[in-house]
């Protein structure tokens, strides 16, 4: 693919642009379905079948299996939808932040508090 407009390079940051969208559609569609509590239960009962129904690519399937946010983003996931996936496991945004930055949750929280000083 080719987008003529220059792509910005922001360290540690992936903009959800067309290129990511093309990669991530199936994954994001599945995560969007988790708005519905019944779908969240169906997913928990048979994760494989649920992922297959949405036609996840194999990196997407693997990232879902690993509950790994950085892998999910690399596979085209959009954080607004991924947050609904995280919600299934009662993970909040600080759990996600800790996982992505390799910190403990307490370290991650302390870092946020420090940013206020």
């Amino acid at each position, binding site marked *: 693919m080719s987008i003529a407009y220059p792509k910005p390079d922001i360290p540690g940051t992936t903009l959800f642009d067309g290129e990511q969208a093309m990669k991530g559609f199936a994954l994001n569609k599945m995560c969007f379905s988790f708005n519905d*509590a019944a779908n969240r239960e169906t997913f928990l009962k048979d994760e494989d079948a649920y992922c297959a129904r949405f036609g996840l690519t194999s990196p997407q399937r693997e990232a879902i299996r690993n509950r790994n946010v950085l892998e999910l983003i690399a596979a085209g996931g*959009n*954080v607004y939808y991924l947050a609904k*996936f995280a919600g299934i496991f009662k993970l909040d*945004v*600080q759990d996600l932040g800790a996982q992505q*930055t390799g910190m403990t949750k307490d370290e991650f929280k302390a870092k946020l508090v420090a940013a206020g000083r």
Partner: protein
Amino acid sequence: MAKIVGVVTTSHVPSIGGAIARHQEQDPYWKPFFDGFIPVREWLKDVKPDVAVVIYNDHGLNFFLDKMPTFAVGAAPAYRNADEGWGIPTVPPFAGDPALSWHLIEGLVRAEFDPTTCQDMLVDHAFTLPMALLWPDQNWPVRTVPVCINTVQHPLPSAARCLKFGRALGRAIDDYDQDLRVLVVGTGGLSHQLDGKRAGHINKEFDQKFMASLLADPDWATRYSIAELVAEVGTQGIELLMWLAARGTLAGPVRALTSTYHIPISNTAGGIMLMAA
């Protein structure tokens, strides 16, 4: 003629909903943020708006990637909240004001904006939590018009476009031939980033410059591209576009009636401003 009585801008993170549900408003962690609303509520009792035009970004409740608008304007008789995936308690439904909605849409289209119109629409935490912060009894005393700006799918509208959008919206409100007191609300930001290795990014200095610029020089933020703004304030900090559009609805100079800035609420730099002409 309709009149904008003031503009409230605020952060809107989902965990505010959890804190409200658990009555943690006075916990040391939350108190600095919730207390910022005390003067806003006093002011609201005074100015008694009839309608709230709420500029926010949908987080994947009402819109999916199949139909992702740059700007969307609600035109429904009522708006419901719904489960977003995390089981935050939902709030009572909101009355719409379809006649005002259509007037605003007409004004925006005449001003060469290209909104998506929504005659049936769910509103998410970015709409409901600010309303619950303004009116904690959730017995909404206003009709509402939801206005969405895309922050999900890049390309996003530029800061310059969002400010112009706000200005056109403000002119359309001013043009409305009903005697209405209109509150404009802008929700999102300030600096935060949920995703990527830079998760937890916060930029106090930029946030404070941005808040000051809304009073002194609302065009200030338009010198930054979307990518530059994301670099400064984070992937979700870009939600400050809602503040910019909301500010734009007030023509001419404004003063801050109250202003709060506190780090952190959840992963976010929490900001609140109340502006009036």
